[in-house]
């Protein structure tokens, strides 16, 4: 087990390092950063001055090490546009996105796993058809449209939930559903397919031959094996939600990281963009690592050799 953890940690570290290099080079992908900063009307002297004062004249590896060193200490630089410390800005925006993505994935899993299991127990039954319909609708509906429909009915017509902002916890309900629903079809269908396969397996027949209660057969023996690929999928989807909640955050006017990313792209604020990409990537790496650990716990073939 220890060997496996160390191996996964090593992989996570290498990915993080690669991500940091790519993120750092973002500064240079749109041309000379000093020219970009100085603006169109700047003279050569001004550009040179900016290049010196921002340290862009040093060799690139030195700049990278310097940037990485400060990033490791939590200093992600200053935003050219907002004139604020980037770390502060990200820290104020991050909680909203984390709560949103967390609620969304929780909603998606709570809806899709039981539905997937129920559909697998009785293929082609009413509940299976219902689940399938829900999945098709979920895959076909654009999340922004679904969000608008919810806003119209739950927010404007019935006045049950706030249609924007997240000052109260109620504000998170609609955005979480809108974001989570999008993930439901994939998770549900994977759960259903996994359960269908596992329920046909020899060890389920053994469990039944032992006279175990149907619930024990289903949850102890079948679900644990069927859920393993679902964990990996859910982790990937959770990562996407963190970075990909731009649309939902915009619609519901949530001051989150996704919304910040969108604003930042509009402004061409490269250091801020760099920092957002880095933070999101690190979250992604952590989530993937945790998913690997969870899978190792569920499947002894991974952890015991």
């Amino acid at each position, binding site marked *: 087990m220890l060997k496996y953890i160390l191996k996964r940690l090593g992989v996570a570290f290498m990915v993080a390092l690669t991500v940091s290099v790519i993120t750092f080079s973002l500064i240079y992908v749109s041309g000379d950063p000093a020219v970009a900063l100085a603006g169109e009307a700047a003279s050569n002297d001004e550009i040179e001055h900016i290049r010196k004062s921002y340290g862009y004249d040093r060799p690139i590896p030195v700049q990278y090490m310097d940037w990485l060193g400060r990033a490791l200490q939590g200093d992600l630089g200053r935003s050219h546009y907002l004139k604020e410390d980037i770390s502060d800005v990200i820290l104020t925006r991050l909680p909203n996105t984390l709560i949103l993505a967390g609620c969304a994935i929780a909603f998606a899993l709570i809806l899709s796993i039981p539905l997937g299991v129920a559909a697998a127990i009785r293929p082609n039954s009413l509940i299976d058809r219902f689940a399938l319909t829900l999945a098709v609708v979920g895959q076909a509906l654009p999340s922004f449209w679904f969000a608008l429909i919810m806003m119209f009915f739950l927010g404007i017509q019935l006045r049950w939930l706030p249609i924007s902002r997240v000052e109260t916890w109620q504000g998170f309900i609609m955005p979480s559903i809108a974001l989570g629903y999008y993930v439901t079809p994939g998770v549900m269908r994977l759960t259903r397919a996994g359960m269908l396969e596992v329920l046909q397996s020899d060890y389920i027949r053994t469990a039944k*031959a032992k006279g*175990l209660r149907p619930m024990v057969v289903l949850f102890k023996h079948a679900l644990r094996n069927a859920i393993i690929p679902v964990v990996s999928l859910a982790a990937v989807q959770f990562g996407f939600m963190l970075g990909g909640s731009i649309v939902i955050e915009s619609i519901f006017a949530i001051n989150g990281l996704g919304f910040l990313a969108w604003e930042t792209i509009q402004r061409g604020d490269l250091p801020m963009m760099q920092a957002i990409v880095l933070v999101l990537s690190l979250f992604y790496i952590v989530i993937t690592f945790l998913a690997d650990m969870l899978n190792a716990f569920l499947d002894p073939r991974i952890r015991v050799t």
Partner: protein
Amino acid sequence: MSDLILEVRDLVVDIPVATGMLHPVQSISFDVTRGETLCIVGESGCGKSLTSLAVMDLLPGTASRTASVLKLDDEDLQSAGERRMTDIRGNKMAMIFQEPMTSLNPAYTIGNQLEEALLRHKQVSGAEARERAIYLLEKVGITAAASRLTQYPHQLSGGLRQRVMIAMALMCGPDLIIADEPTTALDVTIQAQILHLLADLQKEFNMGMILITHDLGVVARVADRVAVMYAGQIVETGTAKQVFENPTHPYTQGLLECIPIPGKTERGAPLGSIPGIVPSLVGDLPGCHFADRCPHVMDACRSGQVDLRPSFEDGHVFRCLLTPDQSAANLKKGAA
């Protein structure tokens, strides 16, 4: 308690398929008494595995079973509900499957999977269940039994896993044990060990055993009684001695001729085989099922239903229009 453990009369299994109704098991009757091993022999697809699954009430989804009598320890299994069946399965009758590599759950330890059977059916503590698991693992010839309990199936070889499966079946001390081709997936060297193990345990715990196999060598070594199945029917049944010494059904005779005998079968001589293929069991099949492959087929074989008839000795019956004497004469002719 009566010596009769399992009583099966007119067991039928039907499976609806696209082209009609499949009849893989057609009116099978047999008994198993305490301390006795019944071998059900036949080639692939003859219905022998479905017969055992029907007794366990573990038939796959669409298959249905009926019988005029289906009793275990005098209890009617047909009127027992699913809930009662879960109390019986693993407790009074247990099953060992053909595929030891996939029959254990990869996610749980050997100990967990052994103990849960006992904890489910008997009022015992965790420690007692553990003790029983160690005792039985030692019984089935696994060394360092206590340390095996914490191991996972993927850490064990196929032979060991089948031993674990046997121990698991014995956890609750069942009256009847059904072994469905328990040695087919194992190395030849391991096959003999597992078979002897099963035979020894069956005598030691005085259980009834149904051993399902297509291997006549296996049958000869462990069977008390033999039921030869062909295309969903029992075509010949009797004690092992009766069936092996005086096979009266042409199919049984053909099967036995297929076995090469050291010293008797000439080197380089072609191995025996029965020409033709098994008939489709979809829809009704009039007459003798073996007619198309039988060397002694007559017109009458294809018209009416062929019933079991007594052979030379008591308890030995076969499904053929020939008299025992004619049949025995055919066997002699073939040998000459």
